[in-house]
């Protein structure tokens, strides 16, 4: 090939751009946060990202991972599978992330998961549907939220403890609607109580009066709403109008502060809710409290703090920033007999010294089965009184 003056000049002009692009790929470790900034999960997304960013900033301030800065790219999944897939494609194809952390709605996680395992990108999620870890994910999913089977079992046990004898279940159309009901039904009927019926409704509808009338006519003493905040807001208002006086129970992610603010206190009075509880006694939990400036952070923000920490520790352990590296090393840093640690910076130092570590997080011990499911978890129960949630207990 003949080297002409023009070719040399062209190469000289192009070089700075090639260099910048190449360094952008190799000099940072890209991690994606895919959280609901709007939609049904919109009240959780901002604080989830805040905890993730806090960990990234702390790690970068301490020198990064493997001598490279961590770059966090945050996208909004809008609590919608379509938007989630679009955002995940961008994170994987354009930003070349090694891991996506924080998917919230089960429908979003279900839609995004195949993209992740096909592209060998690790997915850390807070979604609960049993079906998620039953996908052929080849180990590319880690879930810090207990399965809906475990959650539904605890809900049914809680309803029994509150004296439920005649229960009706209303579920938003989600991947866990049927499996959740089946588990609640099993536990309640095994305890010789009646399950009067189950209605699956379209959460995008603006009114649920007919569905509620269907429930009311069975004369239940307890209604369990497997719902999200927007639909539960409408359901509770209409339930109040219908004059229902019995017990009502839901998931804590639906009975959040936003719901309690949006509805008059007499409408939410007595609404009980359950959530997987973070490890409130752990020092990491206290740290999340400080990051968010609250004494009562939501469980998802605690879990995303753990997601990003585990991803970065796994990269350090592998000595390589890729989804496959995280896949092969996440359990080596989160469980086993290593030194117990509670922060990424602390863990990175020990890993650099070739010391085995065992991360214990804000959400709990962070030990995972082969399926990707968390092994143990505590639950908290609250009751709405005078427009505020009061803790009934953690067990």
């Amino acid at each position, binding site marked *: 090939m003949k080297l002409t003056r023009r070719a040399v000049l062209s190469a000289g002009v192009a070089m700075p751009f090639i260099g910048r692009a190449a360094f952008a790929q190799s000099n940072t470790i890209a991690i994606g946060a895919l959280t609901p900034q*709007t*939609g049904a999960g*919109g009240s959780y997304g901002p604080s989830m990202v805040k905890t993730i960013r806090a960990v990234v900033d702390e790690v970068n301030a301490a020198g990064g991972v493997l001598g490279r800065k961590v770059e966090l790219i945050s996208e909004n999944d*809008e609590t919608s599978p379509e938007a989630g897939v679009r955002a995940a494609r961008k994170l994987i194809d354009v930003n070349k992330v090694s891991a996506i952390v924080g998917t919230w709605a089960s429908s979003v996680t279900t839609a995004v998961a195949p993209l992740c395992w096909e592209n060998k990108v690790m997915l850390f999620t807070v979604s609960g549907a049993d079906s998620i870890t039953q996908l052929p994910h080849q180990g590319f999913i880690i879930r810090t939220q207990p399965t809906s089977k475990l959650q539904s079992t605890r809900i049914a046990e809680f309803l029994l403890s509150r004296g439920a004898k005649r229960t009706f279940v209303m579920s938003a*159309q989600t991947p866990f609607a049927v499996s959740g009901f089946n588990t609640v039904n099993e536990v309640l009927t095994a305890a010789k109580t009646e399950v009067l019926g189950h*209605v*699956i*409704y*379209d959460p*995008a*509808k*603006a*009114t*649920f*009066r*007919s*569905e509620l*009338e*269907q429930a009311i*006519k069975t004369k239940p003493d307890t209604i369990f709403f497997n719902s999200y905040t*927007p639909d539960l*807001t*409408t359901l509770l*208002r209409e339930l*109040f*109008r*219908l*004059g229902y006086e019995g017990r009502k129970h839901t998931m804590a992610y639906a009975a959040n502060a936003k719901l309690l603010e*949006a509805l*008059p206190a007499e*409408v939410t009075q007595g609404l009980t809710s359950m959530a997987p509880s973070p490890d409130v006694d752990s020092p990491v939990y206290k740290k999340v409290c400080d990051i968010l400036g609250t004494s009562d952070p939501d469980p998802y923000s605690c879990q995303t703090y753990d997601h990003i920490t585990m991803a970065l520790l796994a990269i350090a352990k592998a000595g390589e920033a890729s989804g496959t590296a995280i896949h092969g090393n996440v359990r080596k840093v989160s469980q086993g007999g290593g030194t117990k640690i509670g922060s990424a910076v602390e863990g990175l130092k020990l890993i650099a010294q070739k010391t085995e570590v065992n991360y214990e997080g804000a959400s709990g011990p962070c030990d995972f089965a082969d399926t990707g499911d968390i092994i143990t978890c505590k639950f908290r129960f609250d009751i709405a009184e005078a427009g505020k949630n009061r803790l009934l207990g953690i067990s």
Partner: protein
Amino acid sequence: MEVVQILVNGLMAGTLLAIPAIGFTAIFAVLRFPNFAVGGLMAIGAYTGLVANTMGGLPLLATLPIAFLVAGLIGVGSDKLMISGLRPSGPLAAAIGTIALGLLLENVLRFIFGNEFRTFNIPPVRDWRFGDLRVPPHQVENAAYAIAIMAALFCFLMFTRSGKMMRAVADNAALAGLKGINATRTTDLATFMGMGLAGVGGVLIGLDVAIDPLIGTRTMLAVFAAAVVGGLGSIPGAVLGAFVIGLGEELALLAVAPTYRTAVGFLAILLILSFRPRGLLGERRY
């Protein structure tokens, strides 16, 4: 008792549905094309009422004329800007244009207000109970507003010069033109009134449910079905069609789960187009 409850619910639903259905059919009567932007204008009306109530602190009754005016003006403005140029290409082009306009309006609302469900600032009140029969007081109030609006509309069409002009154009546009009736003014008036009614319908439906940018789209099938069942272009037909659809959707609950209730609208359109294409009170085939 269950059937009585269903009939009460159906009548309430039909009353609310009648207002936007009248708006839809009135536009069709004069302009001779289905204006699907009615859904978007219902949402505009609902949000106008919401803002007037929650931010302006106005009582519900005062929000209705404001919603009528805002939806009517936006309806006429957008019609002049986007649809009037399509009308010479035929009713199909205009109808497709209105679908696009409805989507545009919906997305403007989404941009301004987001996707969240919002509600009017009214305290929830327990239903009236008559034995096992439940009647929500707010629905009775909404139905009363709807009936008053229909009565006012009847008076407008029967006794005012503008109303008579509209009826003349709807009946025979060419003859009305020969008599010196200004076609542009009449079509503007029909669009203003139709879209204004859609806006009021949006407020009334928004009072009953929660408001989001899709409130109009979600109701549009039932509105369209009501107009088709009653006979496109017939205002009494739209009222009758609204009650048929309202009652039909509620009665369907005796046989199917609530999730499938919306199928009633499709079924009604299919049946009426198969066996009586002019609709129950329509005078001509389309």
